[in-house]
């Protein structure tokens, strides 16, 4: 059995940022990766996807964007290349093609079992990502058998889908982007809309991420928000890696049909909630509050003369009586795409750290088991934690905690 001080599981941006911070502290470690560096970006993303944050915003410890289009949005090959170059630049000790099959406590440390041998270590950093397994609602079992169903993990482009109508379930970043390109392919899209977060791509001439970065919104800490459970479950912003705003009004304008949250399927009919109007009202009001925050911050920081003047967006259009029923047996809908979110896969995690909902118990990434850490999750330590740009600050904080843990006299370190 090989030994090291720290095993980092996952060589995405989060695991690599941690690797850099551990190297800076001269902490011996290995980064285990089931595939290649940036594996999820390579294998589980659709063809046209561009990163939802602008190029300048991918700042990793000791690395950043050096190209000539700071305000652009990376294609997937560009994201992969960026993370690959980071791994090389920091000389991360990555062992690729090594799948962790089990993590268990042993002798005051941990044993990491993999399909290429086991590791013994004092500390473990789990950086396997927040989006491993697509969430598909239980009512999917009632979908008529002749309808093709798929998740964003398998979706690559519209040519995969049969001709005919598509029901996209979910209206966050994934649902809106896929509804847009699928509708453009000539397959009429109906989109089921539950809770969603509307946001402009740019506001007063600056990217929304620029505002949230500068105004400190993205740096808001997990121990400073009112309800962290709620904050961690907020859906992704309705953003796309393109200049034009892709909100529900943009989709309606091109002919996408909006219906309420999918609430039931029975006798071949899909039933939608009558809450669509309120879901849109909630989102419009929330966006208004974000823009108020930005405007107040701009005024307080003397930016009003430098950037474009404030303005507001028209409310989300909802038709007078959105349909509540959709006959799935009529032949009009050929495909259902579940853009209903993802959850992490902890099937390999054999440490008693789960809450009753199957989430890992942690305090800002310090897991409720000595020497175990978590990275890259929604609002782990800061609002930006799940962004590439959020990995650096979290890795700096958590590597400091990890180093202190290793130095603590109470830590049992028999390896």
């Amino acid at each position, binding site marked *: 059995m090989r030994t090291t001080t720290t095993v980092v599981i996952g060589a995405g941006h989060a695991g690599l940022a941690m690797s850099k911070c551990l190297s800076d502290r001269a902490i011996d470690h290995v980064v285990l990766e089931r595939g290649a560096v940036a594996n999820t970006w390579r294998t589980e993303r659709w063809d046209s996807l561009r990163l939802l944050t602008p190029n300048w915003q991918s700042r990793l410890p000791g690395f950043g964007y050096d190209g000539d289009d700071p305000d652009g949005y990376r294609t997937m090959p560009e994201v992969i290349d960026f993370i690959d170059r980071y791994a090389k630049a920091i000389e991360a000790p990555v062992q690729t093609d090594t799948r962790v099959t089990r993590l268990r406590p042993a002798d005051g440390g941990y044993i990491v079992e993999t399909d290429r041998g086991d590791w013994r270590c004092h500390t473990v950093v789990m950086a396997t990502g927040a989006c491993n397994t697509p969430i598909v609602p239980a009512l999917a079992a009632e979908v008529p058998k002749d309808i093709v169903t798929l998740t964003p993990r398998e979706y690559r482009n519209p040519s995969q889908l049969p001709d005919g109508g598509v029901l996209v379930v979910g209206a966050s970043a994934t649902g809106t982007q896929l509804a847009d390109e699928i509708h453009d392919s000539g397959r009429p899209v109906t989109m089921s809309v539950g809770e969603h977060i509307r946001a402009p791509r740019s506001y007063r001439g600056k990217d929304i991420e620029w505002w949230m970065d500068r105004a400190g919104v993205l740096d808001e800490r997990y121990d400073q928000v009112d309800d962290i459970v709620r904050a961690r479950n907020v859906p992704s912003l309705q953003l796309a890696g393109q200049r034009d705003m892709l909100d529900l009004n943009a989709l309606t304008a091109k002919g996408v049909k909006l219906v*309420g949250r999918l609430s039931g399927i029975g006798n071949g009919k899909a039933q939608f*909630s009558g809450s669509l109007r*309120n879901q849109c*009202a*909630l989102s419009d009001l929330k966006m208004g509050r974000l823009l108020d925050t930005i405007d107040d911050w701009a005024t307080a920081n003397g930016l009003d003369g430098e950037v474009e003047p404030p303005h507001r967006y028209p409310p989300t259009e909802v038709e007078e009586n959105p349909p509540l029923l959709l006959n799935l047996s009529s032949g009009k809908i050929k495909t259902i795409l579940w853009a209903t979110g993802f959850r992490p896969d902890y099937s390999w995690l054999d440490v008693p750290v789960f809450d009753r909902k199957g989430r890992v118990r942690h305090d800002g990434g310090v897991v409720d088991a000595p020497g175990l850490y978590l990275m890259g999750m929604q609002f782990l330590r800061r609002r930006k934690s799940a962004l590439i740009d959020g990995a650096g600050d979290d890795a700096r904080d958590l590597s400091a905690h990890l180093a202190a843990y290793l130095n603590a006299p109470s830590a049992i370190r028999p390896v």
Partner: protein
Amino acid sequence: MTQTQTVDNGVNVEALLGAKQALTEAPQAAKFTWRATCQWKNGTHSHSTVEGFFGLGEEQHRKTTFNFDADHPEVFASEDHGATPVEYVLVGLASCLTAGVAAVAQHRGIQLRSVKAKIEGGMDLQGILGIDTDVRNGFDGIKVSYEIDADATKDEIKALVAQSQKRSAVFDIVTNPTNVTVEVN
């Protein structure tokens, strides 16, 4: 000149937040069962009572038994001893949303002075009379309109009403399907 005023809408937010905390830790205590009994009187007139319910792991009793007469108006050739059942649904929705407005306002530190709701539900009787099977029995839509006087901006008041819908049991009941099992003993 500055005067600190305590917002009081008569809602004990601390108790509600305490209950949220307690029920998060003991989710089985959050399982409630609400009940009513209904006795036929005559014609379309019935008399319902509401008293106990189950919650916090045990039977709960009230000091008062609440009584409700339901009937249909004279244009239905009935005797109009009480509101129609569908009007009780409107009352349920309006009172649930209004209670929610007060609770959310209290939580957000907004003093309410007046909250009035008008609620109406449209219905095509061709459904319940069996004239046209394409027409549903129930409401074809419900409209609620609020007039709220409060120490808040228009958007803050709109947000109260939106959040109240988001958290409302009756709003959920009327906007989403529910399995209903009716047995004869």
